């Protein structure tokens, strides 16, 4: 048995142990034991994934486990990336969950679900036949759904979010099911090797339909506009560790599905497929970040940022397919490397951010940024962690997301002299979308960090916030270390990712270098490590030089400038809503916010204002325009259908009788 096999077996065993422990261990110890076992599972999976990325493959068949086809497992380098990411996220989240579970999440069912969810997350990328993939996918959907609704007794919004998630995820599942079945129809059996060999036999129209169906199904899991409606509901309402698992690990599998089916199983396809992927990615990125920038709910903001980042990853995947289809595999591999690196970085910082948001939620009981502020005094470690995550997410050097975005832009810049009018229009528009996203992401995370954690507390709850227990901090620290490593030394993983991408497209790795990220085939180099060193040196110089020139005097504390009108209160601060107001006005036409201003006058005089109430709501426009009509139509159908069911048994029997006779008549007529 190879390293990969042994590590995966250990993962499976730990997950199973976690479930048993959740059922058997008493409540006082339950969270600790389950958390540690899940942690071990995650660590083993990370090892397995890393080994697979380095070229150790592994395959196994367990024929008795499922009827008809059995379970077929196999890890290749591409699957290894997703196994490693999922495992690493699980380690940080499980550690964090030990401390977090004290707040009413240590029931048997919830604790048992966590290892199953983690196991199913890891099972999807190692499934090596269609049936196994579908079963793993469904298992993942069901367990995550149960975890989303874990707190449904406390908040009514949870149930609604759960319903949205359940319906959307199953519609996506149906799309994948149909797509994969059509894809597997000409193959000898359902294994990926057979499907890959037979994919060429599909007529172009059928192949296009399969790809679009899979794009819809997998894309809905990745939160791609317009199939994102569940994401900003389910991710915020789930318990924070589950939010982190979903936002940092589960959504990635949507991208995995698209890459696996489109690039690997179907071998590339034609240009319009990938133009479609790019367009959807660009729209998702811009729309997601626009909603995030005006959102004042911390977790909702993070959820929309997930849509944005998955959009960016899909721009990379689309560019990869496009370059491959136009005969430039080197650039294609570069674009795929960029997408994979961004995915890795997103997993790291989104874990950190959601865990940080969870700590805030637990210390203050609110996710509303307008009520937060001043947390740096009570929760210094969480503040530092969230600040690090915000820097990583905001595509500024030296940040985690910056390297991925730089690579993506490099592939787009070098890809522009590509043939075809559609390509030459889509590429600049994609660059514009990426650029707009980058700018708005900066604004979003300045708001989230600056308003949420700095300044002075805007509510009593925020003023009373205290730091989280050590296990939660340890979970955040792990994610934080991953962020720093990916930001400063992305070269640790980049050559491996480049090999994975290069192998998939049958070219040499497009990126190399130990300190400097160097591109192969095109000119371009970037060294985050040198940049960070230079910044540190420059900062030291700036601190030291003035002290040499001028004698240093002691610092004195002074009053803030209050225009001479007495002490400033928290009510005079800028809130998240007011911070985002200029941007909201600029994008008024796109966002169409609903504003409501109530002015109450004094009883004595109509000229004296007693109070002004301002409310602003930014409804999701795509949802309102697209989903409301569909839901209304479904409801209308339902009303029609209700007329058929009157409760009379005779009627129901009669339907069966009429149906049978009709069928017989049809048989007679068509014979």
């Amino acid at each position, binding site marked *: 048995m190879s390293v990969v096999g042994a590590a995966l077996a250990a993962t499976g065993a730990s997950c199973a142990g976690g479930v048993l422990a959740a059922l058997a261990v008493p409540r006082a110890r339950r969270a600790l034991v389950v958390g540690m076992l899940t942690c071990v599972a995650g660590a083993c999976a990370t090892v397995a994934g890393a080994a697979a990325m380095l070229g150790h493959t592994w395959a196994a068949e367990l024929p008795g486990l499922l009827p008809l086809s059995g379970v077929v497992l196999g890890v290749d380098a591409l699957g290894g990336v997703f196994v490693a990411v999922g495992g690493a996220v699980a380690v940080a989240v499980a550690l964090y969950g030990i401390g977090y579970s004290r707040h009413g999440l240590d029931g048997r069912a919830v604790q048992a679900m966590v290892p199953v969810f983690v196991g199913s997350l890891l099972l999807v990328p190692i499934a090596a036949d269609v049936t196994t993939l579908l079963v793993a996918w469904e298992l993942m959907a069901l367990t995550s759904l149960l975890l989303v609704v874990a707190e449904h007794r406390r908040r009514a919004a949870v149930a609604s979010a759960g319903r949205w998630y359940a319906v959307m995820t199953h519609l996506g599942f149906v799309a994948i099911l149909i797509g994969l079945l059509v894809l597997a129809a000409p193959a000898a059996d359902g294994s990926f090797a057979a499907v890959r060999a037979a994919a060429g036999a599909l007529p172009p129209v059928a192949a296009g339909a399969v790809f679009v169906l899979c794009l819809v199904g997998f894309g809905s899991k990745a939160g791609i506009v317009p199939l994102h409606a569940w994401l900003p509901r389910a991710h915020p309402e789930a318990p924070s560790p589950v939010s982190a698992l979903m936002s940092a690990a589960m959504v990635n599998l949507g991208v995995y599905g698209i890459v696996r089916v489109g690039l690997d199983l179907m071998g590339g396809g034609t240009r319009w497929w990938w133009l479609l992927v790019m367009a959807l990615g660009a729209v998702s990125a811009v729309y997601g970040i626009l909603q995030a920038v005006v959102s004042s709910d911390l977790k909702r903001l993070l959820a929309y940022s997930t849509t944005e980042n998955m959009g960016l990853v899909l721009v990379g995947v689309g560019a990869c397919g496009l370059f491959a289809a136009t005969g430039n595999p080197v650039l294609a591999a570069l674009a795929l490397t960029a997408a994979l690196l961004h995915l890795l970085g997103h997993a790291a910082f989104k874990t950190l951010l959601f865990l940080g948001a969870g700590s805030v939620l637990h210390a203050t009981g609110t996710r509303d940024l307008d009520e937060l502020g001043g947390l740096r005094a009570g929760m210094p470690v969480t503040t530092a962690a969230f600040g690090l995550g915000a820097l990583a997410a905001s595509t500024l*050097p030296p940040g985690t997301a910056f390297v991925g975005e730089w690579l993506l832009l490099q592939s787009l810049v070098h890809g522009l002299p590509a043939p075809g009018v559609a390509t030459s229009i889509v590429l600049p528009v994609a660059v514009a979308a990426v650029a707009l996203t980058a700018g708005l992401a900066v604004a979003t995370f*300045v708001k989230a960090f600056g308003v949420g954690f*700095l300044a002075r507390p805007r509510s009593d709850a925020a003023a009373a916030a205290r730091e989280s227990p050590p296990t939660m901090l340890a979970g955040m620290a792990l994610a934080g270390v991953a962020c720093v490593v990916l930001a400063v030394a992305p070269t640790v993983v980049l050559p491996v990712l480049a090999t994975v991408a290069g192998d998939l497209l049958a070219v040499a790795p497009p990126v190399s270098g130990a300190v400097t990220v160097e591109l192969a085939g095109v000119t*371009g180099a970037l060294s985050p490590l*040198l940049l960070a060193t230079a910044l540190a040196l420059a900062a030291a110089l700036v601190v030291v030089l003035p002290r040499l020139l001028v004698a240093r005097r002691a610092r004195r504390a002074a009053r803030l400038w209050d225009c001479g009108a007495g002490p400033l209160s928290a009510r005079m601060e800028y809130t998240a809503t007011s911070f985002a107001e200029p941007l909201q006005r600029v994008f008024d036409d796109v966002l169409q916010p609903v504003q409501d201003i109530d002015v109450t006058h004094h009883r004595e005089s109509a000229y004296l204002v007693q109070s002004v109430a301002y409310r602003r709501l930014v409804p999701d426009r795509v949802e309102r325009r697209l989903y409301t009509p569909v839901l209304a139509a479904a409801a209308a159908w339902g009303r029609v259908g209700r007329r058929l069911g009157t409760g009379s048994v005779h009627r129901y029997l009669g339907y069966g009788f009429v149906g049978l006779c009709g069928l017989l008549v049809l048989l007679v007529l068509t014979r």
Partner: protein
Amino acid sequence: MTALGVLGGALQAVLVVVGSPLLVGLMRQVRARMEGRAGAGVGQPWRDLRKLLGKQPITPRGTSELFRVAPVLLVAMTLVVAVVAPFVSTASALPPVADLIVVVALLAHGTVVLALAGLDTGTAFGGMGASRETTILALVEPTALMAIFALSVPVGSTALPAIVGSGLQDPARVLSPASLLAAVALLLVVVAETGRLPVDNPSTHLELTMVHEAMVLEYAGPDLALVELGSAMRLSVYLGLLANLFLPWGIATEAGVLALALGVLALVVKVAVLGAALAFAEVFLAKVRLFRVPELLAGSFLLALLAVTAAYFPA
């Protein structure tokens, strides 16, 4: 890392730190003369800095470490740009950092740090300045990247030394429509990012119109000196970039004393002329309303997009 690069980098750092307050002084002087005032002289910003540096440092109550660190980071980030970008010589001190995307993002990072410091004070002024500055930054970014894209496509690289070097070798490319459109777009980017008219008025202290000044209102003493120095350095770095991307002539390509001296002279003249022209134009401009700024930026974005298409569809 070459000898020329290291020499040039050290020269540039000194030049930017020493010269940027003089540039601000020159621009104020031009403006004063245009308005019929005598003006305080070109050296006034340096005299201000010296005075501020000698004062006692003050920490407003309720602010955190971030507030104290922000000016240092601002100057440090600008300093790194001043060292790595090709201002005096085409070789860079740190070639893997001298990428146009990195440089522009690093300069934006300086703004972000100050915006966080503004929010950290918890005053209405700080929040207002931070909010406005961040809004402008978010809208400027697309234009900046599109202009970069337009400049990089013909060269096939986003590395600054490559772009400047190709401009030197092929003067016709500098005068191509793509390059001219990108120049105008980048000029608007520079105006918006450095808070000049018509986007922001650097000399206002009126609450309703302040952007940058509102954000740094709580700074005093040596901290304020660093903020002022940082702003001045940003201005000169941006103008230097603009000058060398579109008018690269005079920049040193080899490590001789004469070549470097010529490079320094050329940079000083180019930046001084650009700064004076900017100050001259500002006399005739009024600050636009904050909500008209997006129109300006949309216009510059359009120019940048046209530059990209012109770069790709050479007529």
